[in-house]
């Protein structure tokens, strides 16, 4: 199962390397968000720092949706999804492969855009860098795993690009609330780390439950 999933993830990432469609769009979007927010809020003003956690998750959520939307729609051309379905592997391998590819692309976007955000907002971090990475990882993990599952579900609909955000936001809202709150505490008030840890625990539990659920239910979603 892992081998097939890695093959699919490698195929998707190599595909992206060739076409440069999704990742480029995601990075451009993230750059635009940062630029617009930097015009709107004065980096010299201390209250601006309170906006940064929100901006981080706006970037992750909206650029993530751009990638998720393409994830399964790209398999509709020439019915390549059927090619994956008839191969000797479980549907969960397809989910895992797609998840790995989406998650990797999300991490690349975060790696490129967040230093740019901190630079433009002249934001100094005093400790808690490890915790920030942890929140970003588990928050993105939950968002992308649920998003990958719902992208598979929405791909069969004619208006999938509209349907995916409608399905995704209600289901991932606990992750997003937790992630924004935890990021806010880590970036602006590290003394209250225990509160951030409570949010992190909530996100982790949610991640595990929904990842397992998606893993089990994907077979019913992918049936032709």
């Amino acid at each position, binding site marked *: 199962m892992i081998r*097939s999933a890695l*093959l699919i993830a490698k*195929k998707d990432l*190599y*595909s992206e390397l*060739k*076409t440069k469609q999704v990742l480029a769009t995601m990075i451009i979007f993230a750059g635009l968000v940062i630029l617009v927010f930097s015009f709107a809020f004065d980096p010299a003003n201390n209250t601006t720092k309170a906006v940064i956690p929100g901006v981080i998750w706006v970037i992750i959520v909206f650029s993530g949706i751009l990638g998720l939307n393409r994830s399964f729609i790209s398999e509709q*051309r*020439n*019915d*390549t999804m*059927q*090619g*994956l*379905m*008839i*191969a*000797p*592997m*479980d549907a969960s391998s397809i989910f895992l492969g797609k998840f790995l590819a989406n998650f990797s692309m999300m991490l690349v976007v975060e790696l490129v855009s967040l230093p740019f955000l901190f630079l433009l907002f002249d934001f100094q971090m005093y400790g808690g860098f490890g915790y920030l990475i942890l929140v970003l990882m588990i928050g993105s993990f939950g968002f992308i795993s649920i998003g990958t599952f719902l992208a598979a579900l929405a791909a069969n609909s004619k208006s999938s690009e509209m349907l995916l955000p409608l399905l995704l936001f209600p289901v991932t809202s606990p992750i997003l609330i937790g992630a924004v709150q935890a990021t806010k505490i880590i970036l602006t008030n590290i003394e209250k780390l225990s509160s951030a840890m409570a949010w992190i625990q909530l996100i982790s539990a949610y991640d595990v439950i929904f990842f397992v659920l998606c893993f089990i239910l994907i077979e019913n979603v992918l*049936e*032709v």
Partner: protein
Amino acid sequence: MIEISKLIKKADNKLILRGIDLKIGKGETVAILGPNGAGKSTLLKVLATLIKPTSGLVKINGLELRNNQMKIKKLQGYLPHSSLLYEHYSPLENLVFFGNLYGIKNAEEKAVELVKEVGLSFFLNEPVKNFSRGMIQRIAIARAIIHEPPLLLLDEPHTGLDQGAISILNNVILSMKAKGTTTLMVTHDFKQAADICDRIVIIKNGKVADDFRMEEKALDTVSEKYQLQVEGVS
């Protein structure tokens, strides 16, 4: 090789397959003929494990379809209407990817060999999106047979091909037959069915209407029997 008993498939309260009974022996090349909407492609999709039957029993190589999907998938090569190929990938990249998914050893060597066999060696590293319909179909058949399956399921493989491509496709099917591969081919092309198949099954309204062996490459017999069953002309 294939045993189908009382196979029923219902979709949106509409019966598509209404109790198909069919036995196909190992090494047989069988053409499935029938009018549009008769259920031919649905039958192939059920065999390819793409859709689940509503009821009935399907056994492939003695394995029950419902409980042995993974083993059955390894036995099959499926070629539907679409090519199932990634457009921005070259034939080599497509075949190596699918070869690796099927767990074959030396996937690259095998891919190069197959591309040569279908006469497209010169285009080995060109993206598939630049190919004509005939060239795509040749790579698609190479994809379907990369793991040397003992069962080939072909859905209208000759549609839109020029004479050269038809001849290459038929040679591939016949060379697979020589190796003992069982082939099930849905087609509207009576000539190709008469040329390469040794048995014809006519499906009408989701049921087997006729099932006969081809003694010689008698195109007239196929046409007559088809007209009798489907159009009611004797």
